[in-house]
């Protein structure tokens, strides 16, 4: 069981981690990175699966179904779009690596 304080610690550490990771990103990567982090919160799919998996009433089932549908869309769409964008930077690889 994660209680309030433990959650606070995890929130704080995750926030520092996210902040520090991004703090040096060059401008041309802003859009792909926005898209990439958009993909990452697609993990909401997992939570929606649990919600639907434990749904009992028809209303809960409907809401759960919607949640999984949307969550899957977030994850799949986020992946494709990010991948396509970063693909564009392929030719930049050598030049940027200098």
């Amino acid at each position, binding site marked *: *069981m*994660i209680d*309030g304080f433990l*959650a606070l610690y*995890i929130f704080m550490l995750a926030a520092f981690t*996210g*902040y520090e*990771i*991004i703090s*040096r*990103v060059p401008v*041309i*990567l*802003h*859009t*792909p*990175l*926005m898209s*990439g*982090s*958009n*993909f*990452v*919160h697609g*993990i*909401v*799919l*997992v*939570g*929606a*699966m*649990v*919600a*639907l*998996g*434990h749904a009992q009433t028809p*209303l*809960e089932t409907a809401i*759960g*179904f*919607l949640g*999984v549908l*949307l*969550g*899957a*869309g*977030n*994850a*799949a769409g*986020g992946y*494709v*779009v*990010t991948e396509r*964008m*970063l*693909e564009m*930077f392929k*030719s930049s690889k050598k030049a*940027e*690596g200098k």
Partner: protein
Amino acid sequence: MMAAFLPTLVKASYFLAALLFILGLKRMSSPRTARGGIVWAGAGMLVATLATFFLPGMHNLPLIAAAIALGTLAAWISGKRVAMTAMPQMVALYNGMGGGSAAAIGAGELLKFGAGEAASTTQLVLGVVGALIGAVSFSGSLIAFAKLQGWMDRRFVFAGQRFVNALVFLAALAAGAALVAGRLEVGVVIAFFALALAFGVMMTLPIGGADMPVVISMYNAFTGLAVAFEGFVLQNEAMIIAGMVVGAAGTLLTQLMAKAMNRSLANVLFGNFGAARGEAQAITGAQKPVEAADAAVMMAYAERVAIVPGYGMAVAQAQHKIWEFARLLIERGVKVRFAIHPVAGRMPGHMNVLLAEAGVPYDLIADMDDINPEFPATDVALVIGANDVVNPVAKTDPTSPIYGMPILDVASAKNVIVIKRGKGTGFAGIENALFYADNTRMLYGDGQAAAAELVAALKALDGGH
């Protein structure tokens, strides 16, 4: 509730997923490793999703599989098909879906708590806050999508708008407070979500389409937070961590994006930027037009040419024609480089993406800091559809809205040729002194057509082969 049933293997998969997400984001934030990053994160997502099927006590498995298949298929196909230039609105769309999913989880949990399932106060509070943020992100992102897609061209502004928005927001908060206070009735839940969704719409309506990348980034951070909070309700560490990392990273990214445009986030959200403003500063002189044939000759016999693309090139889809023209120049021995301003276009990296699409090799592309010292030694700077990013006013006029933004210093090139359709202003809506300078010539016309004329003129020079 969930944590207690998680078998170790599923827990381990979630941990692996969280680790891969962080490592993936880390790679994505450096140009050298960016491409691998999304693959790492994708592997994490796959592992976590598969593992979830093996949680004990899960019902509705076929339904879950069907929903996943449906959502994945629709998003995958749309994401593959869409044009490169439509990427920002697709990000908005998928981000909105994530926010909606978090809100749906929140709704489901609130209903369960209403039906008597035990919950700590912290879970209740975070569940409500997460649902609120998720719902706002959902409806707000959809409006952002519609605007960028061109479905909603107007900005909806009316007197007292901020006041009405604030009221709706307070009403949503009040409904949320009622839920936390234990009034977990279906009616209150519905009112709460209706208000939250309405606020997301109303908050986004008055914002101009060109500001959308920043707003989308903000909603991206919102969704991250919503996922983290609902993750706490479900006691799911992977959601908590991935959500919070995105929440923090997205917040910083939003600020960086606003800063790159020389704006503050508050200004983007409430500034009504791009609306009709007071009269433009008067600029003396006249724009001096030039014919495509003359412009082509000038560049054909130049030693160094710098091509400066902007939003207009994206609108006209002129990148292929321009690259054809540049290739012809290079064949003639002209040194050609593309000069990219970090916020040229309507999203960061916009020009890089377009030029890469057209096949321009990366070593011909220079960014601002590299090329600015070279303009004085450049014979012709060819500006195509760029305006604000080459406006010298950013350096000279402290009252200008773009004052302080670093610009591409094309004015110091020996000659400047500007391709645009007419006297239209750019994103900032202001006059550009460059177009009136002595060494500037205007080549009027749609970007693609003008580039085609340049190509034709150059080929004619070579004897029409």
